[in-house]
């Protein structure tokens, strides 16, 4: 992957002008943006892993300059056996670390190569999709902090081992499914081979002894396959029957078991044909369908893991002996913790020392900072913006507000309606039809030829076994997910596509969805009486005053200042930050103030004024307006969606003014400001009750329950991890035009689903009469079944093939936007 001029060789971010750091490669100097990236790149080259740069598909994660502090925190945990991972029989440990920054297979290779050269590490596996790194290591030869530091040296960020039991469970499920599939596949090959012999025997003659030998071998192979691979269908059928809602497993289990029992009966009494080949073939194709479905499901990250990542992992606890860094989960009510500027609060608590501003957009969606004084409550996961403070913990871990929100999310997810997807009502109908016809066939033959009754009934069950039908949906969704991924959209729940294809309402969350999520300086009004300074100089002064703050407004000023060619660092002395008000400082013996109107010049303006004012000793100099700017293609996307007669609504936690302004620019008349998650949820439920199908596009954590309650949901890049895991689709690039692309793909997917279902149903319906009349031989049914399944798969793969040509012609602008 090429890097452009002036971009960091490792992470691709622009190299600051006053930085001249390089790494040497092939005798050439390659610029890097910071010491962190330099160290990482040098380590990669010196360990002979430089090929990483040639083959990586995405740029590296910007390295952290100072890993020392985090490393010390890890070292504090070296003695905790509970963090070492599951113990293996030989004393080694199986540790699962979620690691940030893994982007492509080259990253996985890099991590593996580097870690496996570290002493005490036995083997390393990296899952590129989920970012999990599994390390088998010996605690006797290495340390936890050593493993963590190896990852950090490469520029990746490991997280404390959390909730790994769930991932372990998923891995077991994946492996079990693969084993079942493999056993069924190998068994199928064998039994089909014997079946060829038997059918050839039917045509050309075969000795009775040989025939029964082949039948006996088929039985011996079918039995273990039935018990091992077919077990899940019996279990599934039993579960669904007990729950009183017969599912697809019921006719499957019935067909498999009846076909097997009848074959055994016929074999032992020597009274007719055997259908062992059909039995194993059903099991194989059905297992294949289940496997594909499971792989899709696993792509969805667990909500719990993502939630845990929102909370800071470490906390600085203040004890009588001094300060110590502990995992945030260890905090208890009554502990005192120090929270520095720019850090998140590790637990719910009350401020006991200091006053600050807090970014609570995580919970409220409000993009402006909120002032907090001594005695005020702070919530875990929100960010401390202006002053270091001390907090007395009132609730931690599971009891925090954010964890409660997570539970709300899980509840909303479980409450999510089934949706009126075609298969949902089709399943019981199909089952009823099959069972009725099978029963009638048996009854009918009792009057004509009782001897043929049982075998004709079996033929009905065999011929109508919904092989193609069970594959019809999973394969199309697998293909759709593949295609969406190529376009930069991650599909986490296949069923979401069905709802997406028939939406009539799109609900946007304003903060960070339609906008960039960070304020930008849009206008400067200079005091008409004080023209000695021009706009540029004012911006430079403002940026200098705000230089030490992590506040989003401060960031906006710094960005505006850096954009300017004449950017220079101004020296400011005696900076004093007044939380929730502003900053003052001295530049060349003049005292400057920047902040809200009442802070800067006492009275005159109302408190409602949202502008930022700059003043010196002799009065105000400039008034600056900040605004959260629209995403580049928001206008075009909204226009396109309107063209498709989709109704658009903005539900935002932001202020009336901000939402109104934005909605006017996008010409969206249906807007609601100051919405709490609860209100959003109610509005959404009201809309759905009115019969609308709603697509929710959001990004904040506070949206997670709302996302889960919509018919289908989407999050944009930069969206908090939790929102991602609640969403059906995740847009992986900044481009909003992906929304239309997703809708288009969903519609095409639905079309293919309908075709596949129509075919599967039509096929089963048309062979059924033949089976009823006893005219369908088992081998014909078996062949027809395979061809029918193949057709369904081939039809689904059209979705993948169709995408490449369209991509070249249509998505050029999107690609350019991504790389720039």
């Amino acid at each position, binding site marked *: 992957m090429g890097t452009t001029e002036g971009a960091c060789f490792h992470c691709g971010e622009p190299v600051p002008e006053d930085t001249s750091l390089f790494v040497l490669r092939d005798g050439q100097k390659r610029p890097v943006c910071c010491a962190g990236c330099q*160290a990482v790149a040098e*380590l990669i080259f*010196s*360990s*002979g*892993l*430089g*090929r*990483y740069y040639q*083959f990586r598909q995405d740029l590296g994660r910007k390295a952290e300059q100072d*890993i*020392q502090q985090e*490393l010390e925190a890890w070292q504090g945990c070296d003695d905790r056996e509970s963090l070492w991972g599951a113990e293996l029989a030989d004393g080694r440990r199986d540790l699962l670390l979620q690691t940030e920054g893994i982007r492509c*297979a*080259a990253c*996985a*290779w890099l991590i*593996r*190569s580097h870690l496996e*050269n*570290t*002493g005490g590490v036995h083997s390393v*596996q*990296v*899952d*590129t999709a989920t970012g999990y790194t*599994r390390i088998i290591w010996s605690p006797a030869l290495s340390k936890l902090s*050593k493993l963590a*530091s*190896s990852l950090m*040296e490469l520029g990746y960020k490991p997280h404390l081992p959390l909730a790994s039991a769930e991932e372990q469970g998923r*891995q077991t499920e*994946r*492996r079990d499914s*693969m*084993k079942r599939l*493999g*056993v069924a596949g*190998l*068994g199928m090959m*064998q039994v089909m081979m*014997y079946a060829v012999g038997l059918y050839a025997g039917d045509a050309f003659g075969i000795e009775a002894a*040989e025939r029964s*030998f*082949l039948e006996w*071998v088929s039985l*011996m*192979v079918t039995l273990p396959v039935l018990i091992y691979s077919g077990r899940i269908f019996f279990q599934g059928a039993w579960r669904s029957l007990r729950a009183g809602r017969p599912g697809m497993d019921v006719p499957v289990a019935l067909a498999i078991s009846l076909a097997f029992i009848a074959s055994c009966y016929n074999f032992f009494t020597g009274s007719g044909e055997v259908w062992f080949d059909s039995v194993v073939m059903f099991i194989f194709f059905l297992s294949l369908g289940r496997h594909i479905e499971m792989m899709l499901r696993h792509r969805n990250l667990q909500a719990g893991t993502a939630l845990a990542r929102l909370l800071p992992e470490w906390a600085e606890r203040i004890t009588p002996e001094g300060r110590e860094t502990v995992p945030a989960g260890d905090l208890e009510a009554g502990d005192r913790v120090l929270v520095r500027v720019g850090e998140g609060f590790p637990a719910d608590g009350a401020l006991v020392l200091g006053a600050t501003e807090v970014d609570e957009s995580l919970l409220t969606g409000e993009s402006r900072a909120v002032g907090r004084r001594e005695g005020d409550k702070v919530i875990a996961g929100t960010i401390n913006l202006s002053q270091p403070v001390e907090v007395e913990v009132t609730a931690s871990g599971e009891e925090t507000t954010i964890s409660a929100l997570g539970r709300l999310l899980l509840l909303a997810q479980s409450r999510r309606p089934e949706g009126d997807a075609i298969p949902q009502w089709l399943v019981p109908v199909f089952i009823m039809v099959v069972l009725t016809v099978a029963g009638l066939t048996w009854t009918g033959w009792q009057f004509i030829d009782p001897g043929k009754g049982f075998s004709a009934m079996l033929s009905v069950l065999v011929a109508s076994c919904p092989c193609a039908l069970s594959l019809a949906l999973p394969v199309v969704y697998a293909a759709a997910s593949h295609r969406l991924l190529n376009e930069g959209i991650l599909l986490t729940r296949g069923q979401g596509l069905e709802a997406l294809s028939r939406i009539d309402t799109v609900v946007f969350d304003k903060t960070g969805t339609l906008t960039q999520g960070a304020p930008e300086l849009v206008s400067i009004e200079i005091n008409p009486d004080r023209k000695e300074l021009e706009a540029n100089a004012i911006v430079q002064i403002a940026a200098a005053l705000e230089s030490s703050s992590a506040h989003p407004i401060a960031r906006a000023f710094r960005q505006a200042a850096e954009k300017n060619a004449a950017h220079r660092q101004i020296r400011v002395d005696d900076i004093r930050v007044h939380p929730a008000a502003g900053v003052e400082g001295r530049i060349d013996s003049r005292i400057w103030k920047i902040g809200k109107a009442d802070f800067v010049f006492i009275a005159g303006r109302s408190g409602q004024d949202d502008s930022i004012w700059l003043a010196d000793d002799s009065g105000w100099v400039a008034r600056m307006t900040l605004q959260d700017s629209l995403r580049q293609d928001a206008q075009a996307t909204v226009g396109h969606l309107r063209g498709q007669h989709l109704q658009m609504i903005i539900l935002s936690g932001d202020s009336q003014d901000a939402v109104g302004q934005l909605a006017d620019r996008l010409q969206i008349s249906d807007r609601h400001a100051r919405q709490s998650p609860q209100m959003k949820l109610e509005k959404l439920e009201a809309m759905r009750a009115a019969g609308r199908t709603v697509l929710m596009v959001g990004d904040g954590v506070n949206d997670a329950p709302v996302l889960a309650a919509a018919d289908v949901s989407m999050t944009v890049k930069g969206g908090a991890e939790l929102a991602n895991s609640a969403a059906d689709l995740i847009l992986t690039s900044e481009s909003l035009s992906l929304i239309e692309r997703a809708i288009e793909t969903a519609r095409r997917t639905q079309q293919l689903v309908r075709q596949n279902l129509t075919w599967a149903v039509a096929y089963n319906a048309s062979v059924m009469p033949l089976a009823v009349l006893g005219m369908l031989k088992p081998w014909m049914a078996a062949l027809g079944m395979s061809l029918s399944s193949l057709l369904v798969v081939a039809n689904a793969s059209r979705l993948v093939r169709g995408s490449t040509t369209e991509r070249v012609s249509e998505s050029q602008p999107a690609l350019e936007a991504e790389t720039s």
Partner: protein
Amino acid sequence: MNMLYVLIPLALMLLGVAVWALVWAIRSGQFDDLESHGWSVVLDDDQKPPPGPGETAEEEEEKP
């Protein structure tokens, strides 16, 4: 004596071996990471890493 009675049991034994090999491979995690191992073929012929784990360990201690 029919060859069928020799060849089919032989095939069945091979089937048993195949199933055992498959289960072993899945258990030992050979199918868990299908991506990065493919890359190692193209990536590994870079200059060789410093030989022996001892040297690598030293180097890491220099760079905390």
